[in-house]
């Protein structure tokens, strides 16, 4: 793998399947993500979206091929994927509640630190620039943060690893509408800083607005795919996920 493969395919997943015992939660899913782009996977509850992200990251064992930055992995190890520049912000955030905001962030750079890249001081500054709120709360325990701040911390912690691919699992889940808007603003901001993003969302409207390309996952299978702007006008999507007369939602997502 080389550091120089700037444009082109960053992640290519082929025929990825995940089993919980005998139950197949994900069935032969194939997705692709280009460098510098935002790709979203939308779908209803229980469609297998989280399962797919967990399998790509290596949290869950899987069958199929995961090509990341040119090298092929089969059912990878989490640590390997982190070391190669992939980072997952899980649905549950999984923060270190009894540690300070700053310690949470510093631990985000653990893998880099182990590799001898001890620049977490600079990265910390960049993250604080992106989330001034976290800087105000740097000494506070992560467990005492509000929902929105927790999500910012989870994203900030992932950014400390300077990932090439950031995977966000339901970043808007359980957040107030205005904070959802803030989160999506940050997602576009991240892209402009060169971070590629794989976004899993139930909030299809907001996700389609921010993404370049989109996949629809239903009962473990990819059913529809296409450029996000086209999908946003696809009657099937509008009926199932966007609904009519969503002016109010549009305003919030913008």
């Amino acid at each position: 793998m080389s550091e120089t493969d700037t444009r082109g395919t960053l992640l290519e997943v082929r025929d990825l399947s995940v089993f919980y015992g005998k139950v197949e939660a994900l069935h032969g899913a194939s997705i692709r993500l280009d460098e510098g782009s935002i790709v979203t996977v939308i779908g209803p509850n229980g469609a297998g979206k989280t399962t797919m992200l967990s399998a790509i990251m290596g949290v869950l064992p899987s069958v199929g091929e995961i090509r990341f930055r040119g090298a092929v992995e089969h059912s990878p190890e989490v640590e390997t994927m982190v070391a190669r520049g992939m980072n997952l912000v899980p649905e549950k955030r999984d923060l270190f509640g009894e540690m300070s905001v700053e310690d949470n962030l510093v631990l985000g750079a653990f893998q880099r630190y182990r590799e001898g890249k001890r620049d977490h001081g600079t990265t910390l500054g960049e993250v604080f620039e992106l989330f001034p709120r976290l800087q105000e709360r740097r000494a506070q325990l992560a467990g005492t943060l509000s929902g929105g701040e927790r999500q910012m911390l989870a994203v900030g912690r992932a950014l400390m690893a300077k990932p090439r691919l950031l995977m966000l699992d339901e970043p808007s889940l359980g957040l107030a509408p205005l904070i959802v808007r803030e989160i999506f603003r940050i997602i576009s901001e991240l892209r402009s800083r060169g971070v590629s993003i794989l976004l899993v969302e139930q909030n299809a409207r907001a996700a389609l607005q921010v993404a370049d390309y989109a996949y629809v996952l239903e009962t473990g299978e990819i059913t529809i795919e296409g450029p996000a702007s086209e999908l946003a006008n696809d009657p099937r999507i509008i009926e199932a996920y966007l609904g009519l007369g969503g002016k109010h939602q549009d305003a919030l997502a913008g």
Partner: protein
Amino acid sequence: MDLQIALILGQDGITNGAIYALLALALVLVFAVTRVIFIPQGEFVAYGALTLAMIENGFFPATMWLLLGAGVVVTLADGVSAIRAGQSRKVVGIAGVNLIYPLLLLALVWSLPLRDLPLAVQVLLTLLIVVPMGPMMYRLVYQPIADAPVLVLLIMSIAAHVAMVGLGLVFFGPEGYRTSPFSNARFEIGPMFVTGQTIWVILSSLVFIVALALFFSKTIYGKALRATAINPNGARLMGISPMLAGKLTFFLAALIGALSGVLISPITTIYYDTGFLIGLKGFVAAIIGGLSSYPIAAAGALMVGLLESFSSFWASAYKEVIVFTLVIPVLVWRSLTTHHMEEEE
């Protein structure tokens, strides 16, 4: 009982309590990070004390063979899985730590005039031999079943404990040993005599506890261990592998164990199976802290030490009974005050 006796007993209690505090901290740490109830903690105390005793008497320390043997097995196990995973470059590192290091140490121990070395060097050699067994033990005993329920891990702990006691009998024989004190100084403070060794024990324990606190609050590896204890999934996503955390934790636990053994062996005669009782008293203290609170565990350890020394004066036949009976009121109190937490998933 007059003041003088009370002072002597108090001093004894605090000295032993300091050792129990170290062991209790290790037990809390190991449980928090790996969910292992580390019964063999006490064996590291005995191995530390008896290895030092052998070196002091000019014998070749038999624990060296255990280190070498465990190292060979770890090298084989990790080497094979690294080659299978196509990472044959890693084999060099694996063999370096688990095979070359014990061999070099073996050669060193073999060639040195053990009996004539200064005490500090003898202690250092002891630690160099005993401490690496901690991570190796994690690799061989616990890592293959790291996701097993706490009860299964406990059963493995008991197996490891029994095996280590048995090997201890083979290595050291049935006789007890007492090593020479770090210092023969005696101080008279008012009506009380304080020996140099007592001061050594208390100061070393304090220094080590402060060092541990700094490690956990200031260094990124210490924070990584705490993170693993708080949220293993989150830690894993940061690239902190449970394996690395486990090995680091067992390294610390073995270091604390061996160090405690070295500190306590000039005060008490240590037999191959003494470690178990010492470890259990540390465990009582850890239970007082609910296997989660370091400060309460340390305070509990002092209480255990004092209770032990005073009960040995009043009812020496029952001193162990009294100490271990302490667990019952503690458990009743804890079960009444803490809310039962369902396993979250």
